C-alpha cells in the first residue's frame, strides 16, 4: 500500500507524522512542486521519497519555472500559521467539503488533489469511505455516482470516459483503496476492449492504465493483495470462450499472464474467500461450472462443494465470512457455514420490499465495518452483521436504511426515460464499489 510506504518513509526520515503535533520546520516543498499534474502524481507512487527533511532547501527542487516555484513556497496555506499546522487542520475537514476547499486558492487546490494529503488522512484514521455506483440508465448509457454514508448525500462525479459510456460486460475493481478501475468489456462500435482506465478518489479524475494483454468481455475479476486478476470471458471475433487469465500489479504497472483455467468459462459470479478466488459460470457447452484459483501456487482447480452449490449473486466475503442475498430485494441474507459446508444460516430484516427490478439487490459492499445492500433504485441498507447479539439472525434493528430510493437525479432520469418510451430496458446497477479518501 502506497500510503503505508509513504508513512514508513516519513518515519525512516525521522519526521513525526501525527498531525496534531508536527514539526514546524518540516519541508513540504516536494508536495508543492510535484503534485500539480497527473504525470506529477504518478511520480509520487510507492517507493518514491517525500522530501520531508528540514535540511533540504525547498529551492533544491528547481524546475523550469523556478520563480513561480519560489513564490509558491512563500505563500502560506493559511496566513499566520506554519503550513504543517494548517495541514493538521485541513486533514480534519470532512471529505464532503473537499471539492469546495479546492476552489479556495492554488495551493489548497494542489494540496487537496495529492497523495500526501490523503495518505496523511489515511494514516490518521480520518479517511472516509464512500459508495461508488456504476449504473446503466434506461437510455443504455453508463452513469457514475457516489454516496457519502455519513452525510447521506449523493455526490456528482466526472462522467465515465467515452469508451465506457455504453460498454457491456466490463470489469470493475478497487486497487490501493482509492482507485476505481474499469477494464475490458465490449463497446458496440469497438467490439472487445483491452482498455484499462481508473478513477482516483484523490484527484477526482479518470486516468489511463496499461491495456490488458488480451481483449475480453463478460469475464471474471477480483483483487488479491492489491493485484487485479481477470479470467475467462469472451472475445469478439473468436467463437470460443476464453480460458486465459492475467494479473495487473499497480506497483509494477504491468499485466502478466497467469495459469489458464482448466476449462473455458464465462463467469457470472466470483468472490475471494479463504485466500482463493472462486468463480462460477457457464462453460463452452453452456453448462454451469465452478473453479478456484490459488495465487500462491498459481493453479486452478474445479470445485464442487456446498459453497458453490448454494452460492448466488450478489455475494461478498466480509470479515472472513461469506454472505449472499437470500431474497430478491436483499431483505434476507444467507451466510455460508464452513463446518457443515452449507448456507444454512441467515439474517432477516423481516421487511420484504418487493420483487420489482427497482428493488432488486444489485450489490453487497462493506462500508465502515458494516455490510451494505445496494438496490437498483439506489436505496442503500446497512446491516451490522458483526453484532454480538444472540438473536442477530432475526433482529430487525440491526438493519438501517441510509439512503432512500430515487434521489433526485434518479428520479429525473427515470421520469425522462419513461416519457421517452418504455423499451423494456430498466435502469440498473452494473457495479458497486467503495473508495477511501
Amino acid at each position: 500500500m502506497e500510503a503505508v510506504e509513504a508513512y514508513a518513509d516519513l518515519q525512516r526520515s525521522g519526521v513525526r507524522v501525527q498531525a496534531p503535533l508536527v514539526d514546524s520546520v518540516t519541508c513540504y516543498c516536494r508536495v508543492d512542486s510535484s503534485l500539480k499534474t497527473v504525470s506529477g502524481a504518478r511520480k509520487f507512487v510507492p517507493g518514491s521519497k517525500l522530501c520531508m527533511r528540514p535540511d533540504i532547501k525547498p529551492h533544491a527542487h528547481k524546475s523550469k519555472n523556478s520563480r513561480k516555484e519560489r513564490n509558491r513556497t512563500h505563500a502560506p496555506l493559511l496566513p499566520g500559521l506554519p503550513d504543517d499546522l494548517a495541514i493538521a487542520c485541513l486533514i480534519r475537514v470532512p471529505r464532503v467539503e473537499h471539492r469546495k476547499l479546492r476552489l479556495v486558492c492554488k495551493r489548497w487546490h494542489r494540496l487537496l488533489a495529492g497523495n500526501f494529503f490523503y495518505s496523511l488522512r489515511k494514516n490518521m484514521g480520518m479517511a472516509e469511505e464512500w459508495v461508488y455506483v456504476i449504473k446503466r440508465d434506461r437510455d443504455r448509457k453508463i452513469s457514475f455516482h457516489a454516496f457519502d454514508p455519513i452525510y447521506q448525500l449523493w455526490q456528482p462525479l466526472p462522467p465515465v470516459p467515452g469508451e465506457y459510456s455504453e460498454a457491456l460486460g466490463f470489469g470493475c475493481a478497487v486497487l490501493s483503496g482509492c482507485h476505481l478501475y474499469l477494464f475490458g468489456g465490449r463497446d458496440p462500435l469497438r467490439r472487445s476492449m483491452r482498455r484499462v482506465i481508473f478513477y482516483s478518489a484523490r484527484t477526482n479524475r479518470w486516468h489511463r492504465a496499461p491495456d490488458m494483454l488480451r481483449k475480453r468481455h463478460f469475464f471474471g475479476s477480483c483483487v488479491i493483495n492489491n493485484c487485479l486478476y481477470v479470467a475467462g470471458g469472451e472475445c469478439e471475433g473468436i467463437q470460443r470462450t476464453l480460458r486465459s487469465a492475467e494479473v495487473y500489479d499497480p506497483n509494477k504497472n504491468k499485466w502478466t499472464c497467469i495459469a489458464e483455467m482448466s476449462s473455458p468459462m464465462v463467469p457470472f459470479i466470483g468472490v475471494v474467500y479463504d485466500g482463493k478466488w472462486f468463480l462460477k459460470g457457464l462453460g463452452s457447452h453452456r453448462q454451469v461450472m465452478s473453479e478456484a484459483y490459488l495465487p500462491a501456487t498459481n493453479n486452478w482447480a474445479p470445485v464442487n462443494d456446498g459453497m458453490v452449490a448454494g452460492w448466488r449473486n450478489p455475494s461478498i466475503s466480509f470479515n472472513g465470512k461469506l454472505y449472499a442475498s437470500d431474497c430478491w430485494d436483499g431483505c434476507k441474507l444467507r451466510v455460508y457455514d464452513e463446518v457443515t459446508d452449507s448456507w444454512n444460516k441467515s439474517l432477516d430484516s423481516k421487511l420484504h420490499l418487493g420483487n420489482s427490478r427497482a428493488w432488486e439487490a444489485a450489490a453487497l459492499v462493506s462500508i465502515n465495518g458494516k455490510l451494505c445492500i445496494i438496490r437498483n433504485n439506489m436505496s442503500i441498507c446497512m446491516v451490522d452483521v458483526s453484532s454480538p447479539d444472540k438473536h442477530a439472525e432475526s433482529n430487525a434493528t440491526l438493519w438501517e436504511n441510509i439512503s432512500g430510493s430515487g434521489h433526485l437525479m434518479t428520479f429525473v432520469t427515470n421520469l425522462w426515460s419513461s416519457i421517452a418510451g418504455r423499451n423494456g430496458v430498466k435502469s440498473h446497477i452494473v457495479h458497486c464499489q467503495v473508495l477511501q479518501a
Partner: protein
Amino acid sequence: MASTSNSTSSKIITLRSSDGEVFEVEESVALESNLIRRMMEDDCANNIIPLPNVTAPIFYLVIEHCKKHAEMKDNKEKKKELRSQGEELLKSDPHTYSNLMEAVNYLDIKSLMDLTAQWLADFLKGKSPRLIRELLKIKNDFTPEEEAEILERNRWAFD
C-alpha cells in the same frame, strides 16, 4: 497522558513566559504539555521553567483550555460547548487563534492540538470558497479562466 500526575497533583510548577511573567501551575495541568514533561524528566523541575516561545496572554489561554479540557472529559455538553468556541475565536480574532495553535504545538499538548485543529476544520464547514478567503485573508490566485475550468471539470453545485 496525565495518568502519572494524580499522586502528586498538589505539586506546583513555576513557568515563565517569553515576556517575563511567572505562572504557578498545578503539576497535573502542566504535565499535559509533553514539552514541560520532557523538561521535568531532564530534571529542571526545581527551577523556573522558561517558555521562550509563548507570551503571557497566550499562555493564560492555554492553561484555561487545559483545565476546561480536563473538566469535560466525561461531559458531552461541555465538549460540544468547547468545540463551538472555535467559531467565535476564528471570526473575532484569527491572530490569537494562530498564536494559540502555535503555542499548543510548541508545548506539545495533544488534546488541545486536536481541539484547535478541529476548530478550524469545523469553521470551514458549510462556508463558500469566497467566504473562506474573506475570513481567513487568503488571496484568490486563480485567474477567472482557471477558476471556470476547475468548476467546469468538477461540475458540482455551489450556492
